[in-house]
């Protein structure tokens, strides 16, 4: 009896191990596939008219074609370039500014409200203001996205410095480090994890603002322009394809920053 029950007990476990490998590999694909299946189902059931929602296959095929033969790639390139320029401006000014503000608590206190206020103000609400000052130029889109990045990065870097472990600063001091050395060897590193949170948020925000700016600040290039144009002249397939490309760009930027983050800040959370 003992012998008879054992294989039965073991069977589910075996089945589980046999299943585990392929399922484990496939898990991340399940969500996207389910999404495409749902999309297809909505199309097949004619819940939505085809002029408003093309099939996933038609959209993806159009996207590839537009990227390879059409102007989609150059629009994507313009959007990415604007995003990176805005990000670079915000980061290059924001990190040193944040670190400087953070290392002087009194100075930071005095500007904290301003930074918090503008950080909490939707950047899109400032678009008309930027149009007044910069006109509807290319620089405008970069300026407003850069401004948003600057606020986010400054805020996070300042917080990183202010929340540096007191013990490490004391340790450096008791070892004879000058205040410049404490700053360079301890404060800067202590602030890095938080600075990176700022940079990652910054690049995402830069993309969001650039795409919005491309929609509303007279533009003849860029994914934002393409999306709004697709909607207005009812080229919906182009619109969906542009949205997906924008999504892919956002995702890739995030992945790149996450990789840099884990490699550069290897001690984080340890």
């Amino acid at each position, binding site marked *: 009896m003992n012998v008879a029950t054992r294989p039965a007990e073991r069977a589910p476990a075996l089945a589980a191990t046999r299943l585990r490998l392929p399922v484990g590999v496939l898990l991340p694909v399940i969500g996207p596939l389910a999404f495409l299946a749902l999309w297809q189902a909505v199309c097949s059931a004619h819940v939505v008219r085809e002029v408003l929602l093309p099939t996933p296959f038609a959209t993806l095929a159009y996207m590839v074609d537009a990227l390879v033969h059409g102007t989609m790639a150059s629009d994507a390139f313009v959007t990415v370039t604007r995003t990176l320029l805005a990000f670079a401006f915000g980061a290059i000014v924001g990190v040193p500014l944040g670190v400087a503000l953070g290392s002087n608590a009194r100075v930071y206190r005095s500007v904290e409200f301003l930074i918090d206020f503008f950080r909490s103000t939707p950047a899109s609400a400032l678009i008309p203001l930027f149009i007044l000052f910069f006109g509807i130029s290319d620089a405008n889109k970069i300026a407003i996205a850069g401004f948003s990045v600057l606020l986010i990065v400054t805020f996070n870097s300042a917080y990183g410095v202010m929340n540096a472990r007191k013990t490490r600063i004391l340790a450096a001091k008791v070892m*004879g480090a000058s205040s410049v050395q404490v700053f360079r060897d301890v404060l800067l590193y202590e602030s890095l994890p938080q600075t990176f949170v700022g940079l990652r948020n910054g690049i995402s925000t830069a993309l969001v603002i650039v795409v919005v700016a491309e929609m509303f600040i007279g533009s003849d290039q860029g994914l934002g322009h393409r999306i709004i144009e697709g909607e207005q002249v009812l080229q919906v397939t182009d619109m969906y394809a542009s949205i997906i490309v924008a999504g892919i760009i956002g995702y890739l930027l995030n992945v790149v920053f996450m990789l840099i983050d884990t490699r550069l800040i290897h001690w984080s959370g340890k």
Partner: protein
Amino acid sequence: MIAGLEPTVALEEPFIRVRGLDKSFGGRTVFAGFDLDLPRGKLTTIFGPNGCGKSTLINMLSGLLRFDAGDVEIGGRDVRSARIGYVFQNYRESLFPWMRARENVEYPLRVRGVPRAKRRERIDELLASFEITLDLSRHTYELSGGQQQLVAILRALVADPEVLFLDEPFSALDYEMTLYVRDKLQTVFLETGLTTVLVSHDLEEAVYLADRILLLSKPPTRVVELIAYDTLRPRTTEIMADARFVATKQHALDLFRAEMQR
């Protein structure tokens, strides 16, 4: 009083000299007119009730914490011009995790502008003299707790300090590691004869390691007694059964109990 009858402790030339030290936190007085003399080349352990100001005291002695009034001299000079080694209770929060273990140990030399080759030489010398084997090419968070605290101790020793301060250096370690690091600390002390001040919350440990046990009262904090315990080194755990050890510990415990009942 006849000089010959004074306790031996009072005859020693003080190396750390504290006079009229005042310190309070937001109206709560911890030290008021506090005086203390600690001898050169001895290991002094500080023991006292929780919150009596042990950490506060060594932080002031080492120049980490400002005091409201009074004088602290080390070797006849102001603390700020003395070379201090300090080992924090929490190695995780005091080591630099972005540096490798070796860079951590080197740091006090680096801030003094000692060239790279010299720094290496000094560290190899330290490791050899204390018979410590450690993979210093690792990042600190890859090492065990005991190894990390050893890195912290080496870092405190590398620049040849005049005094070594340790604030409950074993309290974040498990028992096995405590025994190991404690042994290494004894080796360091034997090899260098460095004036050492160690805070402990464990009376047995405080006596075991000490030449002098500084027993503190509840705040406002006074010196209850500076107890001498001169048993030869190296000491092993067997001395804990020794009559002098037991008597010294009992004496300290009696004083501590009496102090708690005040």
